[in-house]
């Protein structure tokens, strides 16, 4: 059983968290977004082997946050509240 660090609640059981996709995958804005851009936003994923920056939600408190972790070792490198950086 792994503990994930919620920036609001501290270390909690991994089963309380839900994966929310790549950090930095901003929703396209505007009326004339090309189809390919929508498809990229909706479906394409970095899916890195190694260090990944991801959005997670702690289902108990409902907060979304950015977690950096290694997808091979499962070691958590950082965890921070969303500060508008998901759009970066």
């Amino acid at each position: 059983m792994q503990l994930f660090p919620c920036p609001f609640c501290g270390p909690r059981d991994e089963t309380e968290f839900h994966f929310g996709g790549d950090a930095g995958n901003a929703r396209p804005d505007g009326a004339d977004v090309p189809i390919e851009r929508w498809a990229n936003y909706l479906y394409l994923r970095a899916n890195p082997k190694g260090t990944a920056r991801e959005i997670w939600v702690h289902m108990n408190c409902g907060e979304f946050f950015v977690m950096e972790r290694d997808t091979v070792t499962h070691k958590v490198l950082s965890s921070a509240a969303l500060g508008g950086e998901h759009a970066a």
Partner: protein
Amino acid sequence: MTRRYSALSLFKEGLAGQTGWQPAWRSPEPKPSYDAIVIGGGGHGLATAYYLAKNHNIARVAVLERGWIGGGNTGRNTTVVRSNYYYPASVELYGLAHRLYEGLSKDLNYNVMLSQRGMVNLCHSTAEMEIGARTVNAMQINGIDAELFSPDDVRRVAPIYNFSPDARFPVFGGIWQGRAGTARHDAVAWGYARAASRLGVDIIQNCEITDFIIEGGRCRGVQTSRGAIRAERIGMAVAGHSSVLAAKAGFRLPINSYALQACVSEPVKPILDTVVLSPGCGVYVSQSDKGEIVIGGGLDRIPSYAQRGNLPTLEAVIAGLLEMFPIFGQLKLMRQWAGIVDVVPDSSPIIGESPLPGLFLNCGWGTGGFKAIPAGGTLLAQLLASGKHNDISRPFDLDRFASGRLIDEAAGSGIAH
């Protein structure tokens, strides 16, 4: 010099003290160039090389495998073969694989131990029975054998299920495919390897791809840990690592990689002679020819490249197993493992040319690649040989994500994605 397996060759080798057998496949040094390269020495990659040589007469082919052949997902699955899908495009694809599996031992001259013991997908409520009837109708319309099972039918094929009145998941019936079953997973890899090697394919193990050779906007070869190898057509069939290679080639895929776990018990006497899947319990189970109970379940909840799986998912699977079969409460687990699967939003594979011309994809099989090996190999081989889709692979092209023609087989895959 015994190359072909038969009752006669077995008898002769018995008299000769088993001294004449040859290695099942050659291990040559890589050549600087080939007509086609297949990246990935799992079932799909080896099958692709075999069908390139057999169906298209292209035998100057290299299969490049980072580790050892069949050491990835081909050796980590639960060996189930079935084609009980819903949409016509999926039925064409998995139906092709199923038909080829039925003749595979003869085709390869290698016993893949296909055992068509049947499979039942259980229904645990009247609502699930209605969906079950709809699925059976769809399968029958699409020409796939299917039968709607009553509770008595289920009792006949799986008498040890928990039929007690206070069962948490009572049986209302099920979806039966009698031609479904299991095959020996290692034998599928070894059989394809041996048959491909005999047709001239070079199988090169311990050969990791470090980069792609891109010239004039086309993929023209690969840099490997054993030097540069060139070819005008390159196919990749690397299951969970598709995104890693795509990143080297400069594009992204609609894939998240997850661990999918399985486990086996100690061997016991024959007690379960069919494959049973319960969506309610999130478990499917069969008994291997050695007597082990082979147990599979849903994906891990965390995107991962760690081939080991996590404990909460394993606990959920075992809890589900004991709901289904209380008699298994005394079993001891012998092994647990995980494979990395490439999960696509619509739970259907990606077959077609990649955004890098000359590089072709066979990936995204998610939790169900083993049953599709003969079809994945046939279709990727045709793409590599002709550069064009045929009618079966066309719907699975990467362009479906931009056009919105998704083939949503999450239900057909049988477990939650």
